[in-house]
């Protein structure tokens, strides 16, 4: 898995996924939403940072209050065609002011990176089979941006 943060390949990732079996692990733990909701106390009791793993079915209003507890929100993209994560990232940043890392996981490949970045993702987990160093040239490939988004909130007519 290649991890890109702020448009650069990074070699180390402190975050580890947890499931029911690894609930008591310590360190930076990425927890699926359902598991978090079932085992908040146990997870909070361990040392290390918490990250939340969500997917397109989440209702952000339901988790809004808890967001400050997480240093990371990972949004899972189940397929190349699924676009819900774009709205979710944008809302996390613009509506809920989430300032931690927002990471795209799942079906993440070169040709959606720039839209993801514009929507507020600052980290991308790219499967090894889809990674090449040239991948980062996807960022900024199209320099004219009509719409405002997380990277630049003003639409073109306001700049």
């Amino acid at each position, binding site marked *: 898995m290649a991890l890109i943060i702020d448009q650069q390949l990074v070699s180390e990732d402190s975050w580890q996924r947890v499931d029911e079996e690894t609930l008591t692990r310590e360190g930076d733990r990425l927890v699926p939403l359902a598991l978090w909701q079932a085992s908040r106390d146990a997870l909070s009791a361990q040392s290390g940072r918490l990250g939340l793993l969500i997917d397109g079915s989440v209702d952000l209003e339901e988790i809004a209050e808890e967001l400050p507890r997480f240093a990371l929100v990972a949004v899972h993209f189940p397929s190349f065609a699924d676009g819900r994560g774009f709205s979710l990232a944008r809302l996390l940043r613009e509506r809920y002011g989430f300032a931690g890392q927002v990471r795209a996981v799942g079906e993440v490949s070169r040709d959606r990176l720039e839209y993801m970045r514009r929507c507020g993702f600052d980290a991308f987990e790219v499967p090894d089979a889809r990674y090449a160093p040239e991948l980062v040239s996807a960022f900024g490939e199209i320099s004219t941006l009509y*719409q405002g988004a997380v990277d630049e909130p003003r639409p073109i007519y306001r700049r």
Partner: protein
Amino acid sequence: MYAYTELDQKLVDERVEQYRDQTRRYLAGEIPEDEFRVLRLMNGLYIQRQAPMLRIGVPYGVISSEQLRALAEISRKYDKGYAHFTTRQNVQLNWPKLEEVPDILADLARVQMHAIQTSGSCIRSVACDHLAGIVADEVEDPRPYAEIIRQWATLHPEFAYLPRKFKIAITGSRQDRAATQVHDIGVHLVRNATGEVGFEILVGGGLGRTPMIGKVIRPYLAKEDLLSYLEAILRVYNLLGRRDNKYKARIKILVDALGIDAFRNKVEAEWERIKAGPLKLPQAEIERVQASFQPPAYAAEAAEDSSYAQKLAAEREFAVWIERNTFAHKQPGYRAVTIALKDYLKAPGDITDAQLDAVADLADRYSFGLARSTHEQNLVLPDVAQADLFPLWQELSALGLARPVVGTLNDMICCPGLDFCSLANAETLSVARQVQERFTDLDYLYDLGEMQLKMSGCINACAHHHVGHIGILGVDKKGESYYQFTLGGSSREDASLGKVLGKSIPLAQVAATLEKLLEVFVEQRQEDERFLDTVRRIGLDPFKERVYGTDN
């Protein structure tokens, strides 16, 4: 027409290079098939029955002579010397090679054209009245707003992977020539109680497997709120639209499932939170775009020409063409002229490279260098001085583009069907020829009055058969093409969905069936009723009886 800035040009140029690289990586095996499919669709490229098909955007139907010439040249260089105008006012090439598409797109970009988002699960198009800026009863010209919406939608990073395709239509006239009530979002320019101009917004219209008429989500929206409101609708759809079943994924399904009131509540809750933000549309931006759509330099004395009236009186065929194929213009001394792409036995909407070059030339000489495409698969020269109408008619006639059939049975909308399209279940082009061969008596067609015949080769309804006065849907019955008739549809301001007549009809009997339907109409009509009015008044039973007899 909208004048590209440096930034607009950069966008299309950079998009070409992006797609060129995607094509290279795909051919090198670096992009999986299903991913490249999504990417190429967002650049208008289908892989079709016989060859790839490229859908080029003609935003809200406005096209310049330079662009028409470029299309002619592209059709020669990369294709088989012709192009096809669609029911979304776009234009298609039927024979490009996949590996040459980046070059085609580069040639298009040079004349400010592109194929961006003309397919795919994204915002595909903003359709517009082909008589925008011409008809007298417009509240305002909708084209500047179509351009503003287009830019907002183009490469929108949040809405490129919607549950399904998304189409918007806008009109400024009470007469709806843009089929706004069967679009995902329909926009009407309206005045409120204090006379201010704003928008009525409709949502959830569409055709296909589950045809629906759009519902009013907001009767009045101030101009400055246009983009934030659309953004709210799209965000709700992006998050809540179904993704489990591609036939249940359009916004109309979501609106129908929630009910319009609950859907509105969700949209307006979202809108409340963004409407004061940077999406608020400044008047300065509206004016900037409107500046590109000012009326051309009309000749003030155009109406004083006397040759037009003389020709009308002296040349019967010319007079017929004026009545059938031209429209009154709000500017005295001018008319809008339909170039009918409905020549005898030719595929509706097709145009050859020579015709494209000729139309470009005619646009330059007679219509300030501009033309329009209509969703009825015709072209329009919008601003023709009356003194020029006769010479124009003569030239169009020589080109096979003056068949005086606009608004008649032979102005049918017809999709390419089984001959070309991998989605089709039935032939359409051979049926179109059959109909044309049967109905050659123009006087008879004129006597029938306004007739909208629409024929689709499959349930995807690209020819909008649900909203034809007579709709024909091609179906496959045990490997043979059969045709299901619907009556009483309309895509206009009196929008309605056609009702099925009965069992589907074999290919060889389509024209004969049409004849029977028209017989009943002629027998039953009252006064100046259109076919549509008669159907609405008497219902389908008299038509059923005539076509099927007593067994149905």
